[in-house]
């Protein structure tokens, strides 16, 4: 072994690894967690729906139409006589012998479906006007409709409503997490850093908050939201209510990390090096638990999403005309809906998928968060 080292690719790799910082090591470990990576992609897709909801929507989700009430999902036929020609059949509305509304597809009347079709006008990022949509029917015509997931009682397209609901439900989560993150890191940090009476007080407050049953608390707080508030105001009130409870978890994590780190030799040695208290916190302690915070945050998001859904489902959260997953599921509250119009249950699917994706993603992040953990 004279010196073939220079050309050895495995040694080159080891050298690169030796100079790899925390984030690169975290990324390396995260990548090995296949399921988490897949879930990360799913979450990205969800948030692209949030950002470009109008693009993914087929039609205006708020305009009711009594003529189109409770249409079942329409199936897309991709080929016409062996040729690529995506289309749906026009539905014909009839009343059967029991005077029940029945929609039957009419194979003779084909409605062409196209991608990047023109539809209602919207503004990209609220600025650039456009009328392009991911999918739509060719030619604007009142009779030509496309209901991928059917319609609700008031004849509104469920697919489009779900797209807009995603925007509301997933941003409630984001805003709520930001709020509880701020509260949690601040109070948890103070608690862990100063200890003593301050720590005791904050910890007792956390215990009290955590011991209050959440649903009655939400009910009380939601009841306090004035009825005449606008949709936006209610929306912010709900995010604040949710984050008021969920900051406690984060505060405890942050406090625990502070307490554990305070005893670490490298923190003691930073103190001996002459670092100021601020420098110890921000240059040594925060970087070493930042990754944990990120992981915990990802795990808090699904709690937020579920809370919002639960609240709205109970009629305590967002109220129509606002659209969220919970609001949509309200329509599926009775047995009749499940029996006759099962497609109204579709909004439960994104709830489950999003919550699972967040959980797996967070798990993967948490495992990768401390690349220095000695196994």
């Amino acid at each position: 072994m004279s010196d073939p080292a220079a050309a050895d690719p495995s040694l080159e790799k080891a050298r690169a690894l030796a100079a790899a910082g925390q984030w690169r090591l975290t990324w390396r470990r995260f990548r090995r967690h296949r399921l988490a990576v897949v879930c990360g992609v799913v979450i990205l897709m969800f948030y692209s729906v949030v950002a470009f909801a109008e693009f993914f929507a087929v039609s205006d989700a708020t305009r009711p139409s009594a003529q189109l009430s409770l249409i079942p999902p329409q199936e897309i036929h991709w080929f016409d006589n062996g040729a690529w020609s995506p289309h749906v059949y026009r539905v014909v509305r009839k009343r059967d012998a029991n005077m029940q509304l029945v929609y039957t597809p009419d194979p003779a009347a084909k409605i062409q479906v196209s991608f990047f079709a023109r539809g209602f006008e919207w503004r990209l990022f609220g600025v650039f006007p456009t009328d392009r949509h991911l999918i739509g029917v060719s030619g604007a015509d009142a009779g030509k409709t496309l209901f991928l997931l059917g319609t609700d009682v008031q004849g509104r397209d469920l697919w489009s409503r779900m797209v807009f609901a995603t925007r509301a439900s997933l941003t409630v989560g984001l805003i709520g997490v930001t709020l509880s993150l701020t509260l949690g890191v601040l109070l948890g940090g103070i608690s862990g850093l100063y200890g003593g009476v301050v720590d005791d007080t904050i910890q007792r407050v956390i215990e009290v908050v955590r011991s209050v049953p959440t649903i009655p608390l939400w009910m009380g707080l939601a009841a306090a939201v004035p009825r005449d508030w606008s949709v936006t105001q209610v929306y912010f009130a709900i995010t604040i209510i949710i984050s008021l409870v969920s900051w406690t978890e984060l505060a405890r994590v942050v406090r625990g990390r502070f307490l554990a780190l305070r005893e670490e030799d490298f923190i003691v040695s930073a103190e001996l090096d002459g670092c100021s208290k601020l420098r110890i916190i921000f240059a040594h302690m925060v970087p070493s638990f930042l990754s944990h915070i990120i992981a915990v945050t990802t795990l808090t998001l699904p709690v937020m999403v579920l809370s919002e859904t639960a609240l709205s489902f109970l009629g305590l959260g967002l109220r129509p005309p606002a659209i969220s997953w919970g609001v949509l599921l309200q329509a599926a509250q009775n047995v009749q809906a499940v029996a006759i119009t099962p497609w109204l249950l579709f909004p439960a699917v994104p709830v489950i998928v999003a919550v699972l994706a967040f959980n797996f993603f967070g798990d993967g992040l948490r495992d990768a968060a401390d690349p220095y953990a000695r196994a």
Partner: protein
Amino acid sequence: MHGPDRVIPAMSMDAERPAESLLRVKGLRTHIDVPGGVLRVLDGIDIEVGCARTVCIVGESGCGKSITARSILRLVPSPLRMVGGEILLRGRDGVEVDMARLDPYGKQMRSIRGRDIGMIFQEPMTALSPVHTIGNQMAEAIHLHEKVSRKEARERSIQMLHRVGLPKPAERLDAYSFQLSGGMRQRAMIAMALVCGPPLLIADEPTTALDVTTQAQILDLMRELRADTGMSILFITHDLGVVAEMADEVVVMYLGLVVERGPVAQVFHDPRHPYTRALLRSNPRHGGGAGRRLEAIAGGVPDLLNRPIGCPFHNRCAEAIPGTCDRLDPEPVALGGGHSARCWIADRPPALAGVPSTAPRAAAQIIVSPPVSATAPPILEIDRLSIHFAQRRGFLRRAMAPVRAVNALSLAVLPGETLGLVGESGCGKTTTGRCIIRTLDPTGGSIRFRQDDGSMLDVTHLPGSALKSYRRQVRMIFQDPYSSLDPRMTVADIVGEPLKVNGIAKGSELQDRVAALVRQVGLRDEHLRRYPHAFSGGERQRIGIARALSVNPKMVICDEAVSALDVSVQAQILNLLRDLQDELGLTYLFIAHDLSVVRHICDRVAVMYAGGIVELGETRQVFEAPRHPYTSALLSAAPVFDPQERAGRQRVILAGEVPDPAHLPSGCPFHPRCQHADGAQCTNEAPALLPRATAQSDGMPPNWTACHYANTLTLPAIDGQPPGSS
């Protein structure tokens, strides 16, 4: 002796004593699958354990010692897997069973574990279940293998606990593991392993977590039990001193291979593998006096991923033959008498002189350290320092007896010296160090540090900004090289941090100084932009030293700075510390529990017990003519490095445990354990630390001793040597 054509597999030694072997392991291979290949954790291990013999497996960490034990027991944790070899155990009926062919979790294997092979582990706290009493766990072990009544199982357990020397065994039977001290736990663990009377005991580092006096008790106990029962012991350790104390035969492992094996005397006095020789020489205990430079092995144990081609040791070997050792893996060479070594030059007399057992060291290796001027005023003066921790318990925070970690400790550190602070765990040595650097505040007494202008700075209650400048003059090196470096900073940032935050250097000047520091501790410039995770323990400790030295301190507190390191790396770091002291005129306060390290590096030694100093003096004087019964007991508990000396040696075995610092005994804190206590003055009056001259002093300044009878007692010294003979 033998020509190269006599290269024969070591397995032929089986033929020499076929009848008496209890366990024969042949070609044991355990691998681990990694992306893109296989790591050979064990690559063909041959071990033979004869009836009523003790075989020690020795090697540095990462050599596969523990995996060997686990493979024999068929308890390899996945992703490791045993891929080949034979493990032949002679059963009670005299028939050999190949355990390698049994289902690891099958009935037969389960009946072997516990009944035919007993096991003890390093950490008795985790090896014992905390939710079951000792008695329950012992009874379970009995019931698993024998049909006996509960009453009988209980009686046998009590007998066994009695036999391992646990006081009040009937009461201890109903105790939980956390209610026992470390030494008692290990005794209970041994009792549990032996309760079914297994003919073979596998002990994996059973004394590593224990203090030296407790270790001596446990080793004595194991020797006694072996003599009584005629069992065999497979003893795994990293400590060559323990090997010399215990072994009949030694197996030296390196990177999953047995590199040398043989009777203990032969391996110690005529080692034929360069690794064995290097291990022996790098140990500070070996013939060691202060002032000698240790012969360290270059580098560290390589990662299995980077296993060298050819002989796995060639890249660290001083005697490697280019073209042979780096190409071809040698086979074991039998050297007669059951001695064999896996080396191309095993059958030649070693080029570097072997390790003579008692001959004095070559004169060329002695470095005369600059004499510490006894007249120079001390650089640090500690006067009656006390550190007590208030304890509060329960909901109402009732005050309990405070933990008196340090009690009225007085000590002066002279400039340019290395003062050792030595004692067992819990004696307050680390607390004292932390208090000197003021991460702990003293309860009473004072600490004063000499400034450049000769004035004394009182650091006892120094406020913030002044403390910052004091901490530039007194620095600290930590024990654990893994937790003491911020894993999120590069080496350059870590070493440069003190310079940056103290505003000493910035920009290119900072870079230059950091690079110079890193070179000074034996690292290279290319290491600067790497993160700590890329370094081994020894290299990390070098980074820690560079950080400590970056602000040109006058004094460095080394808190167990080498005790987490393997012996070959430890020698490198000790040499580095000594070189840096000579170069920079540093003063060291060297806190350690390892007597051999202290003896090697320190000019003076202070022995601590229960928060106070019991003896203080020149290193040689303390080690060769101790005046305090505790010092003497501590010294005689340390394993002797020479296997031939163990037979005739008299040791003071200390009974009992280190006292609870919340409830210290009255009078002399050592009196409950002291053989010489008089029952009156010792119980009532705490002795002062005073210089007590004796006839043996040999012209050296007398030891300061805190014992009423220091002038009259005759105490044995280390190695049982008469003072001044080495």
